[in-house]
């Protein structure tokens, strides 16, 4: 099952990458005719860079979703549901607005990532605190486990508050910056990614991947009840802190890079589970690959849809496709099988 699953994921990534490389606002063979007088090879190189950019971002979101689902023991968790994306978004907006208001020098990608990580981790900490288990509610007696329902509900509300706060910040900045912020908040992959930004995403994915893969055995045991996991020798507190950091930081880097992009972090791990099973030794790489395939295909689809007003933000495509797919999963109960 596992081998077949990885073959399916590998083929999906190659097909999606080919699709994305073949489609673009400027066709490869017609490029020379247009204002962008570039050789076909360079255009192809740009597109391959876009494929890499989308694949890495998708992998970051897939891994972040898996980490948060394991952290919360809730298959419906994702950076979106927990408000982490909104918190990270607020962090970025705060850095941009702050730089403008205090007439600071232009914010680098590193600054944006810093703001996003601070926003994401603060949000996660608040949500984890609000959603902590209560003994009186039948919570786990003292294990430090969270109550998934309280946690998810807290995440939705805290996320809404941060989204509103981000909109408030938008009102404080001039029109040009406001437009950029609005566009970025819809989830937009950079057409020509800055190398340093892309490198940051790649390094984050590699570190997050290794961090999760090194905990694969503990994550398998942690899928039992908390008491069984702890009785088997898993340090749940340490494991959860790692999941908290990996899930939060990967989501933050993704948000800083392309804005909040929904559903990849939610659906990627589900597709991975269907294809390779529930053991984390396979699930960690499969979630990264599924997230990558999903975002590259969403990027290809948005290139294909030409409304004459510019390309759609990729976040719109993932929400339009991922939302109904997730509702179908939820309704059919397949997410829990």
């Amino acid at each position, binding site marked *: 099952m596992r081998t077949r699953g990885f073959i399916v994921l590998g083929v999906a990534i190659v097909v999606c990458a080919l699709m994305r490389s073949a489609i673009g606002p400027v066709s490869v063979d017609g490029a020379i005719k247009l204002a962008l007088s570039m050789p076909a090879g360079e255009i192809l190189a740009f597109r391959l860079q876009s494929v890499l950019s989308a694949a890495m971002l998708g992998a970051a979101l897939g891994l972040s979703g898996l980490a948060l689902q394991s952290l919360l023991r809730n298959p419906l968790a994702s950076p979106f549901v927990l408000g982490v994306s909104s918190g990270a978004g607020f962090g970025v907006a705060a850095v941009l607005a702050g730089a403008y208001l205090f007439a600071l020098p232009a914010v680098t990608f590193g600054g944006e990532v810093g703001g996003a990580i601070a926003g994401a981790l603060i949000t996660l900490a608040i949500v984890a605190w609000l959603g902590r288990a*209560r003994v009186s509610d039948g919570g786990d*007696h*003292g294990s430090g486990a969270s109550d998934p329902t309280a946690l998810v509900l807290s995440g939705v509300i805290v996320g809404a508050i941060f989204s509103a706060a981000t909109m408030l910040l938008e009102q404080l900045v001039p029109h040009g910056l406001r437009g950029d912020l609005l566009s970025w908040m819809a989830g937009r992959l950079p057409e020509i990614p800055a190398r340093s930004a892309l490198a940051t995403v790649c390094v984050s994915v590699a570190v997050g991947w290794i961090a999760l893969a090194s905990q694969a055995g503990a994550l398998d045991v942690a899928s039992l*009840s908390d008491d069984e996991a*702890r*009785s*088997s*020798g898993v340090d749940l507190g340490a494991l959860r802190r790692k999941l908290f950091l990996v899930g939060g930081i990967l989501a933050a880097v993704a948000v800083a890079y392309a804005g909040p992009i929904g559903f990849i972090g939610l659906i990627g791990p589900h597709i991975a589970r269907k294809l390779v099973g*529930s053991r984390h030794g396979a699930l960690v790489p499969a979630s990264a690959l599924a997230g990558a395939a999903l975002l590259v295909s969403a990027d290809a689809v948005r290139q294909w849809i030409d409304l004459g007003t510019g390309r759609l933000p990729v976040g719109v495509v993932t929400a339009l496709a991922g939302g109904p797919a997730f509702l179908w999963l939820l309704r059919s109960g397949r997410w829990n099988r």
Partner: protein
Amino acid sequence: MESLTAPPARAPLLIGENLGLRYGLHGSSYGGSHGGSRGGSAAQVIDAVVGVSLTLAEGEILAIVGANGCGKSSLLRVLACLETAPRASGRVEYREIRTSSRSVAHRLAAVRALVPQRPEATAALTARQVVRLGRFSVGPDESAVDRALGDVGLLARAELPVNTLSGGERQRIAIARAFAQLDRGGVGGGVLLLDEPFSGIDPGEVARIVTALRMRARAGAVVLTSHDPGLARAIATHAMVMKEGRAIAFGAAGEVLSAKLLSEAYRSPMREVGDWIVPDLTASQSTERGRMRS
């Protein structure tokens, strides 16, 4: 616990001294001495376990019985070291097992295993994969997994997804996972802690679980909680009766599990029918009638 220690016949595998567990209703923890709740609406505390002491030797099966909410499961969690200070108090000591691991969690995993009341039926894992998880901190050993599956009679169903098994079979798989965890090269050992292993299980499954536990207890020890005093008396060598967090009796199962003590623990008349102890419904009805008349 007040002078209720049963002298162990063999070297103790587990010693619990003056064990306590106290927690706040709103999730806060409270340390300090026992003896009642602290004042104030936000400081409502529950003393789930108060001053319980026990020893358990190799080959013994201890049944903890008592009414719902009397602290049986809490005591089991304290014994499993899943509760720590300041909520938990007292001393839990397992006979030291030599292990190279420096992690306390790993060292504990080699000497005790807990099977909770409702083991998680992990989707998409086979029975064998679940049992294998028991080897997480004690090192992979496929023969230990096979032995554990064989001991609970589920070797033939090892490759089936665990969520397709019956409730009784899932319970046996959870027990097999604990067996695999405590397996040391074909020798059992350690202390197996089971919370209500027979709840919601048919008599055939109960018999199969009892057989497996008896076999395991030969080289180690078993602590289980049960709502069925008759069953507890049939399988346990020792018993503890709990009431409101305290042990009101601890000793040989045949002596401790008496209708008189259990009537006090359950606050309802019990009577002995052959080897079994059952609720005395006639006495309950007359007591109820008497109450209504008065």
